[in-house]
């Protein structure tokens, strides 16, 4: 066992973790621990843009961004936190540019912006150009830029270290325990502040845009110490995943004029969202797609639809919509312009679908995409552990793992990258500040005790179960019963299945008993996290007897503000029981009203 000591430890090296590290390292001795090389993090797969009301092309205001996010959240987002994020967005994007981020540019040399789902001019209700982009690899450029700046700032990195436990002493964070993947050696990181930035858990579902690494590690680690989770029933399905594979096709395709087409050749979103059509928010579009497919309107009756960005299609519907260029001329696109603005999408479609999107429509289906729920925090990234928002000293969370809550029941496109940079930065600043005024908590007498117990359970498991089978059963049942449309009956049966699978999981034998890159052992630990999280998601979803944002129930089809305008808190008790509680939503000036796009 090796010991290390730092003022601030950051777990995870995606956008939130690197932003936190960059800011914390200005005043505190900071280290980042990541199970992947930092540039492998999932932030790098984000495509379309980061939202900020720069107004580079047309009138926009951070207050409009705030209202759009509140409405997008189906009024479950905390409005003070959303105001903070949208106000801070403008400065945060300029900071990224000052760090060298190669944004695409307007004719005047400013940061280029494109329309995105749910982002509107609040006066006209028309889509507004708010997504600041670098071609269709904005997340890649954010990840690279932040990693590069961390190198410049001499941040310490522990790459390919899997954090498996949080150390809690006297009710405060005292550090973490990690497994060095190359050797299986245990490392104890003693710290004054711990920032969790481990991302989401989209690997719970079968069709997913999420990386293999997205296994809910941060939530799993904290839940085992009695720290609650917030709004776990809310998980976003992105409308346009590549058919069967789930690989993301950015909403930017529709921002540039692409449309969704059903098997009858109809642009069906006109019926569901008459005003903004294909640029409605994601929950609305994913549900519309589900209903079209269910009604037999899939392509050739199959369970997919077309995303069509051929120039002739874009130009036809832009003319019908009366869409104009900034100079007032009719909006048109050529094949060359589409390739220039969406190079990676063209590449993905050619590689994985064998389709040239400039010449053929792309087969798509909704794909599991984003964790709205997570570890509850306030707007400074401090973890809050009860319905009175009591802060746990020394513990922070930021990015997809956290629930501030700025996304509520449904996140707007471009607000995830924004969440990373705004709350990554503020959690880093706050964690560093805390570490200046605090002493180290003493380490527990045997800091690796629980880590060894977890490893022993995996190494010594006996039985004939198979990891692939347990994982695929979980993914299938969660997709079918706790996905885009839910019913009490379906979720109850999913809960039983997941509980059975948690038992079967204990009987998956470990074939690799070695120390060097034992990826099988790590994959098993990750599957354990996913199974526990799947159970929590299902319990929270069963309890919420309404439909709101991404949580849509056939048996309770309406939003119920009287009973359910509140956040769900969930705790895993030492006996394994999941306990639920609730806390109010913060409303500043936007009273809940019916949500129409």
């Amino acid at each position, binding site marked *: 066992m090796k010991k290390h000591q730092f003022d601030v430890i950051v777990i995870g090296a995606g956008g939130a973790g690197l932003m936190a590290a960059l800011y914390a390292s200005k005043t505190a001795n900071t280290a980042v621990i990541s199970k992947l090389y930092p540039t492998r993090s999932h932030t790098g797969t984000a495509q379309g843009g980061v939202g900020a009301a720069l107004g580079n092309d047309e009138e926009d205001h951070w207050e409009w961004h705030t209202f759009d996010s509140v409405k997008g959240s189906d009024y479950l987002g905390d409005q003070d936190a959303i105001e903070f994020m949208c106000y801070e967005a403008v400065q945060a994007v300029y900071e990224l540019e000052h760090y060298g981020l190669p944004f695409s540019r307007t004719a005047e040399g400013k940061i280029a912006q494109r329309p995105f789902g749910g982002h509107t001019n609040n006066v006209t209700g028309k889509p507004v150009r708010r997504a600041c982009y670098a071609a269709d690899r904005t997340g890649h450029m954010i990840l690279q830029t932040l990693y590069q700046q961390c190198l410049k700032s001499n941040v310490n990195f522990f790459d390919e270290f899997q954090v498996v436990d949080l150390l809690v002493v006297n009710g405060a964070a005292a550090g973490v325990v990690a497994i060095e993947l190359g050797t299986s050696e245990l490392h104890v990181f003693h710290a004054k502040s711990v920032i969790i930035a481990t991302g989401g858990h989209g690997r719970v579902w079968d069709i997913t845009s999420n990386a293999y690494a997205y296994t809910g590690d941060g939530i799993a680690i904290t839940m085992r110490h009695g720290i609650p989770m917030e709004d776990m029933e809310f998980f976003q399905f992105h409308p346009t995943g590549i058919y069967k594979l789930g690989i993301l096709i950015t909403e930017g395709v529709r921002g540039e004029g692409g449309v969704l087409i059903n098997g009858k050749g109809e642009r069906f979103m006109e019926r569901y969202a008459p005003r903004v059509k294909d640029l409605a928010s994601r929950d609305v579009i994913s549900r519309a797609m589900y209903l079209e497919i269910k009604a037999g309107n899939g392509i050739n009756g199959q369970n997919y639809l077309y995303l069509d960005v051929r120039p002739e299609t874009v130009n036809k519907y832009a003319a019908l919509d009366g869409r104009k260029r900034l100079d007032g001329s009719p909006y048109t696109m050529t094949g060359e312009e589409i390739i220039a603005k969406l190079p990676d999408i063209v590449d993905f479609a050619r590689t994985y679908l064998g389709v040239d999107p400039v010449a053929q429509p792309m087969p798509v289906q909704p794909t599991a995409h984003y964790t709205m729920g997570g570890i509850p925090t306030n707007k400074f990234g401090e973890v809050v552990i009860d319905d009175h928002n009591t802060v746990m000293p020394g513990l922070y969370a930021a990015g997809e793992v956290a629930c501030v809550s700025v996304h509520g029941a449904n996140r707007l496109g471009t607000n995830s990258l924004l969440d990373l940079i705004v709350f990554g930065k503020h959690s880093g600043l706050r964690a560093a500040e805390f570490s200046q005024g605090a002493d180290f908590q003493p380490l527990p007498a045997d800091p690796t005790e629980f880590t060894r117990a977890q490893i022993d359970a995996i190494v010594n498991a006996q039985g004939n179960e198979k990891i692939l089978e347990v994982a695929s059963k979980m993914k299938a049942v969660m997709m079918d019963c706790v996905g885009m449309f839910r019913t009490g009956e379906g979720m109850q049966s999913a809960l039983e299945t997941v509980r059975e699978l948690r038992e079967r999981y204990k009987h998956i034998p470990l074939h690799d008993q070695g120390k*060097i*890159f034992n990826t099988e052992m790590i994959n098993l630990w990750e599957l354990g996290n996913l199974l526990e999280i799947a159970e929590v998601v299902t319990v929270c979803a069963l309890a919420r007897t309404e439909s709101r944002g991404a949580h849509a129930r056939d048996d309770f089809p309406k939003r119920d503000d009287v009973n359910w305008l509140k956040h769900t808190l969930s705790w895993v008790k030492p006996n394994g029981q999941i306990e639920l509680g609730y806390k109010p939503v913060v409303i500043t000036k936007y009273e809940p009203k019916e949500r129409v796009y």
Partner: protein
Amino acid sequence: MQVTVKVFRFNPEKDKKPHYESYKLEAEPTDRVLDMLEYIKGSFDGTLSFRRSCAHGVCGSDAMRINGRNYLACKALLKDFHTNKITVEPILGMRLIKDLIVDMDQFFAHYRSVMPYFVNEEPAPPQERLQSIEERERFDDTTKCILCACCTTSCPSYWASDQYVGPAAIVAAHRFIFDSRDRAAADRLRILNDQFGVYRCHTIFNCTECCPREIEITQAIGEIKAAIVTGRLV
């Protein structure tokens, strides 16, 4: 269709030297090589070890030699190979650790050596620094790099000496040298004007041919050579 996947295996805790194992499995022409490796690990041998994460060619984890050429396993589809015999081996020129996992430390050390970060200590304006569409386009190609190491580990000059910074590090330098906002081009050119710098490139084009991001790497290296010789950035 039935596929035979021959996989390079080496367990440093058991094996004296590497060997190959063959696995027969059913696969679709559109399956990724990564899908087949996952299936082998899950169904035949849990000890098989390799890196992967995003599974769609963006994170750069799973660079491997597949039928003799470097690919990302998640971006190489069975149908691309026009055969039902697939051989998977680790990328060359790096210290072998286990199965398909190699030591990437030297690769990232070379990356860090070229100042791969934006430098401009002039006071920043309150809004963005302006950059024309043309200035931005000048270095667009090299911003696409995902540090997968396909290029560096396909380069015979790198195989000959791992002191050579390698194409990936030069691509990283290029991305900043030709960025109109950056101020450290001269420092990077000085670093690359070295016996282990750009002159180790003998325009073999292996890097360009296997880059999963289709970056014109040999071109980028040539532009840096020209900048060193002429003292001008064009």
